[in-house]
């Protein structure tokens, strides 16, 4: 079906034939390259047999004409259809040279490392500035309690806390089951079945409950904060708020941060309950520890301190998740990949800093002999 294009050279005449369009460019280029052009004498280019020429065809012809002119060969175009001639003239007038495109300089690896380091430091600086501005805003609102957005705050607690209950409950239950199974196998070898209560109680209340809840919430809520704020930023909604004298911090950021600040400790208790319950079910099944024995030992062996230490970490994790999520959302740029990139960053940074904070807590608690 595809029409062909040809080019012939004889008696100082270059005869162009057929459809000079994009699909035929490669074959035309090949045939032109094969032609042995003489080094002197005028060459006549005839377009009488051209049925169609698009800008790609005209571009090819002008490129060869440029090559021939460079060898000081005079050229003449004859019998080209008027419209094609116009197209060729138009292209000849423009200076199209890839050399004119500005080049982006390639950096050596050491320069790249430096650039990335500076960018990271700048981001850290921007984050600290963001936190500082939020704190000032917080002080302002604290002195005018009428500015507190109760609806936004409650809606944030509802979305980040209440709606997360099923998934957090289910995952904690499974974590309890898995932990009991892994530890139970070892304990059974020594006939120390009942110690599963101590192990499970301490590990879930102190570590697994708060840490896993925070990680799940970072994935669930941190990312949604970033995406929501990022889209508002890209859509100029944030600018609109700013010009109306309603600061985004007051309406959007602080309610989100405080909502999570309240919701995450509650979710942690919820996760503790389900984690212990999952362990209890597994202990009953695998290690033959009755419900009664489990609960009896639990209240005597697990100090309230374990629960409080775990819960004490939750608000800190909440501040990390919410501030990173909001910061990444507010630094979205107006490009399609920016929201995706910042959402990824928000989750990765939040989880990273949660684990760092958890490690710091462990060191502090061990120094304090808690």
């Amino acid at each position, binding site marked *: 079906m595809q029409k062909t294009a040809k080019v012939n050279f004889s008696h100082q005449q270059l005869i162009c034939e057929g459809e000079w369009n*994009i699909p035929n460019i490669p074959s035309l280029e090949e045939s032109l390259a094969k032609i042995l052009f003489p080094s002197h004498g005028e060459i006549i280019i005839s377009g009488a047999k051209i049925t169609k020429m698009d800008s790609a065809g005209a571009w090819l012809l002008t490129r060869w004409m440029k090559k021939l002119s460079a060898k000081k060969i005079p050229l003449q175009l004859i019998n080209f259809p008027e419209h094609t001639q116009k197209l060729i003239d138009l292209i000849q007038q423009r200076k199209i040279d890839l050399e004119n*495109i500005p080049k982006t300089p390639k950096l050596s690896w050491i320069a790249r490392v430096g650039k990335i380091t500076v960018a990271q430091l700048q981001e850290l600086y921007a984050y600290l500035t963001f936190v500082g501005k939020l704190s000032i805003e917080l002080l302002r609102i604290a002195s005018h309690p009428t500015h507190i957005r109760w609806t936004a705050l409650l809606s944030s607690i509802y979305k980040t806390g209440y709606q997360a209950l099923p998934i957090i409950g289910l995952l904690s239950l499974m974590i309890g089951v898995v932990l009991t199974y892994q530890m139970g196998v070892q304990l059974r070898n020594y006939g120390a079945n009942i110690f599963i209560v101590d192990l499970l109680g301490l590990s879930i209340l102190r570590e697994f409950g708060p840490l896993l809840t925070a990680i799940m919430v970072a994935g669930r809520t941190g990312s949604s904060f970033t995406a929501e704020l990022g889209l508002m930023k890209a859509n100029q909604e944030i600018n609109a708020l700013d010009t109306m004298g309603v600061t985004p911090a007051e309406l959007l950021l602080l309610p989100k941060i405080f909502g999570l600040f309240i919701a995450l400790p509650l979710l942690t208790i919820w996760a503790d309950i389900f984690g212990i319950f999952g362990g209890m079910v597994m202990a009953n099944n695998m290690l033959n520890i009755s419900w009664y024995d489990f609960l009896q030992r639990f209240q005597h062996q697990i100090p309230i301190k374990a629960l409080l230490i775990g819960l004490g970490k939750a608000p800190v994790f909440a501040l990390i998740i919410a501030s990173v999520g909001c910061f990444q959302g507010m630094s979205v740029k107006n490009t399609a*990949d920016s929201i995706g990139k910042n959402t990824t960053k928000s989750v990765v940074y939040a989880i990273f800093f949660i684990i760092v904070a958890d490690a710091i807590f462990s060191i502090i608690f061990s120094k304090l002999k808690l």
Partner: protein
Amino acid sequence: MTTNPNIIEIKHLSTYLGGAWVHKDINLDVKRGEILVIVGGSGTGKTVLLHEMLALRTPTSGSIRIFEHELIKADAKTLLAIQRRWGVLFQQNALFSSLSVLENVSFPLNEHTQLDQQTIRELALLKFVLAGLPIESAVKYPAELSGGMQKRAALARSIALDPELLFLDEPTAGLDPNKVMVFDELILNLQSTMGLTIVMITHDVESLKRVANRVAFLGEGKVLAIEPPDKLIQNRHPLIQEFFNSE
């Protein structure tokens, strides 16, 4: 083969959308080589009609023939063959923000031709220059360009494959009157050198008078009139009078 002078034929097209009939009975032909402008008040379904011509939305009933192919029932292969022969300039430009401007223009060439990279880049640059953009901005990203430059870049991308048919959705929306005039001239220029057929939606009466060969006026779910612009302005239909007098 190309004895049919019509490049697009729309017959008895109707669209039911959001609980109302947007189009009741649209009949519209676009002739090869002309510039047809579609106008009409807000909510008369101009953009819906355009999206239907672009196969982005299926009408409730009726037929749309483009390049002698029935668009609504076209299989994927036919559709692809049609898509390679048209270019579209969207209202919001729809430039890929993660690619540089030149990469945006090269994109259709990369996808649909077997040319080597050097040729593709030179052809893209040619379109780039034809659209009136300075070569220095080739490596910039769309977000770094002004509104008018983005329009030109989007136009360069839409003509990258030398289409026979070009759709322009509000090409001059958001440009200042002076730039509108320059842009209209650019379109007229490209149309005459590249032999394009253009279907264009616009609100701008001045721009319409400058570029249109024929104007189709949408209203009451139909094409109320299809005439050259100077005749359309004389049309006695109340909706048409209202449109031109309010401007």
